[in-house]
Structure formats: C-alpha cells, structure tokens
C-alpha cells in the first residue's frame, strides 16, 4: 500500500513545487487602464499577475490614484502605460510609489497623430475637463497601432523575464493575427458604405485614429466650450457642421455625459444610435469586455447606423 502511494505522492510534491515556483516567478505587471490591461493579459497569459489601475468603465483622464495603486507600483516588475500624456496621474503615482520598475510607454513606435487643437474636452459629471496634449493619445483606436502596443508589451516582458520570452512572443503573434483579422473586418465593412454615409457625432474626439485608419468622419463638441453647457452659438456651429457632413448618427460614449449630445440630437432630428467605447472597456457582462470585442462593437454599431436604409 505504502509503496503504491509513494510515486504518486512524490509526483504530487514535485508538481506542487513546480507550481509554487511558477507562481513565485510570475511577473508583477501594472497596466494603467483597462485596454492596456487586456493587451497585457493576452501576451502574458498565466505568466503574469496583472493589476489594472483604471478599470473598466472608468476614465483615466480624471482618475485619482489610491494608496493601493502606489503599493502595486512599488511591487511591480513592469509598468505599462499609454504615454502621450494620457495618464495625467502617473508621474505623481510613480513618485509616491518609489518604484524602480521600467515604465513602458506602449505608443513608442506607433503611428501617432498630432492634435491640432492641442487637446480635447472630457465631460466629468457637470464639469468639462480639458486634456491638453500636443499629440492625440488615443492611438489604440487604430488596430494597426494596437499591434504595436502588443509587440511592445512582448518586448517589455521579455526584458523582464527572459525565460518566458518565447511564450510571450508566441502569444503576441497569435493575438496580432486576431487583430489583423479585425482590422480587415472593419475595412471590408466600411468599404460597403456609400462615401456620403461616413460621418457620425460623438461626445469627445477620441476616434481620430479610427477616422485616420478607416475613413469614418467623427464630429464632436471638442473645443466648442469649456462650460458644462455650450452656448447656443456653439451648438449652432456644430449643427451646421453636422448638416454639412450629413452625419448619419450620434453616439454616446461609455465614459462621457450625454446631456450635450441629447441637445444636439434634438436640434438635428438624429437619434442617439448607441454607445461607443473609447477609453475604457466595459464590465465583463457588457458589450466590450476586451479590446477585440470593443472594436467590433464600435465598428458594428457605427456601420449599422450608417448602412443605407
């Protein structure tokens, strides 16, 4: 009896030891917001312990870091950020944490667009928050850029954990294949739209990369007003632009207030056609729990609203 159990026990002990060792060697990864967190999980798989600072449904522009975030950074092996001044809280958090982990800006090497207005507005409750930036930070809205993010993540993980590098690169390659298919799906769908049916209205202009990549024009109240309530003249100007472009739909955004959009919808007889996800994923039970789902949801919502009737 004892002899028959012994090999099993030894096997169990060895397996457990390997399991414990594997857990101990997991990379502690901090991602600044939910979309980057999804990329990190796709690349890192079971080799990483992931902490996402600004979670699904939350706006990184107005996030206030917490002590738990500083502690996560203090224990991090790799910190993944968007860069381009997207995470305004990050420098303060790095100082608070005293972290010595590499801070990786994933937009390094991406196709980055200048922001002609030098920034854009976010509605945070009643307050319009201006996000000043010389370059548009929402680079992930182009799938080609998302592939750059993924490659950067794989390289950052390789630098921190050479032993897992092969798997990180394999995961990145597999995921980038899925991204390539997504990119083609959006291109094919947009190609089916009549050229005059390619304009929509959104709350804040986080979709310039989508516009640049796929040829959908996004109109937004960006730059119209720093006030919670835009003036009648401001709204009239935007409405003229909407009519000039013959915009086909208005979309709410998951992180933005809809009151100004409701007003524009009433003035233009356009209906709010749905909700787009720009700067954050949805919760698991929502339509955009991951980047692939988010981009498919956005693209399908836009294309459905613009399809000839």
């Amino acid at each position, binding site marked *: 009896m004892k002899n028959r159990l012994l090999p099993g026990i030894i096997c169990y002990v060895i397996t457990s030891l390997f399991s414990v060792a594997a857990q101990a060697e997991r990379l502690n990864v901090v991602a600044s917001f939910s979309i980057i967190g999804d990329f990190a999980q796709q690349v890192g798989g079971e080799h990483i312990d992931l902490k996402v600072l600004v979670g699904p449904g939350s706006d990184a522009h107005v996030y206030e870091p917490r002590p738990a975030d500083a502690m996560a950074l203090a224990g991090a092996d*790799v910190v993944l950020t968007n860069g381009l001044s997207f995470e305004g809280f990050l420098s303060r958090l790095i100082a608070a944490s005293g972290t010595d982990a590499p801070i990786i800006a994933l937009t390094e090497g991406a196709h980055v667009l200048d922001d002609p207005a030098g920034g854009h507005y976010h509605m945070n409750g009643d307050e319009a928050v201006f996000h000043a930036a010389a370059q548009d930070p929402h680079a992930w809205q182009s799938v080609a850029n998302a592939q750059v993010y993924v490659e950067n993540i794989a390289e950052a993980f390789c630098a*921190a954990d050479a032993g897992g590098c092969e798997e990180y690169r394999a995961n990145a390659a597999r995921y980038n294949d899925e991204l390539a298919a997504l990119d083609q799906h959006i291109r094919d769908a947009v190609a089916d739209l009549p050229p005059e049916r390619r304009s929509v209205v959104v709350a804040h202009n986080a979709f310039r990369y989508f516009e640049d990549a796929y040829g959908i024009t996004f109109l937004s109240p960006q730059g119209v007003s720093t006030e919670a309530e835009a003036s009648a003249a401001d709204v009239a100007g935007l409405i003229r632009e909407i009519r000039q472009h013959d915009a086909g739909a208005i979309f709410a955004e998951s992180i933005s207030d809809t009151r100004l959009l409701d007003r524009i919808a009433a003035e233009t007889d356009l209906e709010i056609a749905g909700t787009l996800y720009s700067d954050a994923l949805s919760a698991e039970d929502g339509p955009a729990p991951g980047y692939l789902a988010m981009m498919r949801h956005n693209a399908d919502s836009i294309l459905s609203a613009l399809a000839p009737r």
Partner: protein
Amino acid sequence: MFRKFATSTAIAMILAPVAFAHEGHDHDDDLTHYRVFVGDHDKPLVTAFDLTEPEHRWSFDLAGQAKLFAVAGGAVVAAVQSDDDHVHFISSGIELHDHGDHTDLEVSDPAMLGAPLTGPRPFHLVDHGGKVVINYDKGGYAGIIEASALAGGTIGEANFPQSYPHHGFVAPLGPVWLGTVAADGEGARLGLQQFQADGSAVGDLAPCTGIHGEAFSGAFLAAGCEEGVLTATIAGGAPVFEMLPYPEDFPQDVTTGTLLGSTAIQVFLGNHGADGLVVIDPVDQPHFRRIELPFRRIDFALDPVRPAHGYVLTEDGTLHRIDLLNAEIAASESVTEPYSMDGHWNDPRPRIAMAGDEIVVSDPRAGLVRRISTEDLSEIGTIEVEGQPYNLTVVGGSGLSH
C-alpha cells in the same frame, strides 16, 4: 526577482522626457529656491529668509501672533492672527509659473500687501479651487478671496454668511460650496452642508459631530468628527457625503481633528488622539490604518516631493518619518530638546514644514530654525532667528529662470 535589472531602464525612461523637455532652454538657469516665513511666539512679527542664504532676510510687523499659510500657489503668505482679529498678506516674492513642459521660477523680495483684513477671530483658512476662504469664528461669516487676484496683489473679500458664529470652515468642492453648521447658542458643531454662494443652504445636513479639521486630496474633502471621518466628493454636480466610522479596534475615546491631504495620491494623514496618527483611504478598505506614536504628537506634515512620506515630531524631540503606504514609522532621529505637550496648548513648541529635500523645524527655545535632511533625518544646519520662532511656512520650488 525581476526588479534588479529594471532600475537603470526605469531611471532612463523617467529622465528621458525631462531631458527632452529641457532642450531649447540651454541658456536658462535651473533654479531651486525656498523661502521660509517664521512667526514669533510672543512678538507680532514675521521673519522671512532664504533657506540656503539666510542672510537674505526681511521682517514684517503684524498685530499679534500669527499662524502662517502659503496660499495662491505660494505667491502669498497669509498671516492669520486669531487673537488680534487681523489677517495680513505678504507677497512671498517667489512665483512659479507652469508652462507644461517646464516651470518658470521668479524670485524677488517679499513685501507686505495692502491693508490687512480685519474681523472677529479669523481662524481656519482653506486654500482650494482658486479660492482662499477665512472663517471668522466670532463673526458668523467667512470671507472669500479670489486666489488669482490675491497673487496679483489685490485683496478683495466677499462675505459668506453663516447661520451662527462658530469655529468652522467654508470650502469650495468642484462646483459647490460646503460649510460647517453649528447649533444656536453654544455653537456646537453639527456637521457639513452644501450652500449656495450667498450662504443659503441646499439639501440635508451631513451629520459630523464636533466637525474639525479639513483637507483635500484627489476628488475628496475629509473632515474629522466624533464618530469618524466624513468625506465629501462630487457626483452628478452634487456633493455625496460618507461617514467613515472609526474601526472598533481603535482607541474609542479619541478622535481625528487635524487632517492633511496628499497632492499626489488620494490619501489623508490625520491625528488620532494625542499619540496616534491615522492614514485614511477614502475609497478602499481598510479606510483607517493607525500608527501608534511613542510620545504625544507636536506637529506633522506631508512630503510633496516623496508623496509616500510624512513626518511627525513628538514631544521627546524626535522626528519620525512616516511610511503612508505601509502605515508605519520608517525612521526616527532626535532633532530638538524635549518639548512637553503638558501645559497650555499654545505654549511655544516646534513646528515643521517641508522645503524640497529638507524639513525645517522651528525650535523656539533655542531661537533656531533647524534644517533636517529628508534622506536620513540628519541636521544639515541651523539658522538663528531672533525671539521665539514658532509657526512657519515655506514657499518655493525649482524651475527655470529665462
């Protein structure tokens, strides 16, 4: 295990944008300048001096003993003289202008600004959201001053009426005004409420028995109460109040009455009784983590350069570095003779303030301001100040001079 070979990369990546940001400013001077303002305990006097060149010094006559506040981004020092019903404003002579990729620093002589404000017992001063608000405890009102106008040298005060005179505060939070509310008669403080700018109440009172001490951090205002710490934040344009009760395993006969708010992470440091500090996280559990001090607290401060650090001086003359993330004392060094907390609350005792990589400590009995390194709590030097140096504040920082 992976952190060792990350250091150089991290430093390089953090420093890279800084180096880039300084391109184009090759012929500019990179300046760091701190100026200390010290109020005397007995004489109606403020002495100002430059930290590293203390022979550059100035003195300003007041009406009485003053508590000093750096306001309007450090452009002005407010000298609140509660027992003498005056508030003087001194232009600090230090101006920091943020230009996004760098900060400009301009240094000139400090100067008294215009005529002082007067009113019945000015006490708590709140500097937040572009407003400087002074509560007149015996006047039944608060005075609101535009910080930008004050920085430009204009002292204009708008009146914010209160129902009853009391030892409270009025503060802007986002788009709304919040103010303490007291009962008629003895002025017992009941809680916090939203008000319109004309002083008319909006909504319901948020109970906070004996409310005292207020600080801002991130999206929150916090204030101490007998039953816990009350937090307020804005959602949908209106304040949302939450009472965070003291944990049951805390000493039950003491409360928080003084709070400091971090400007880097959303966290508060408060007293909890005479010999305890408490780290308060307004969002995540546990909301309270208590730090037991070896002796009673004299004064405490937060480090804006290393936001995970705070400092507390205890009555045995020891300065302790507080690790806010782990809620513990991380280091301790003796810096002054003992100062007992027995006796009158306003007896001359040291006060501390932050000046970049230094903690400045007034030592009234020795007639000194001591310069203490934040690195190892060692004494860098001492600066003689006539009389009994007491309350103090520091303005300054680093920037470019074009």
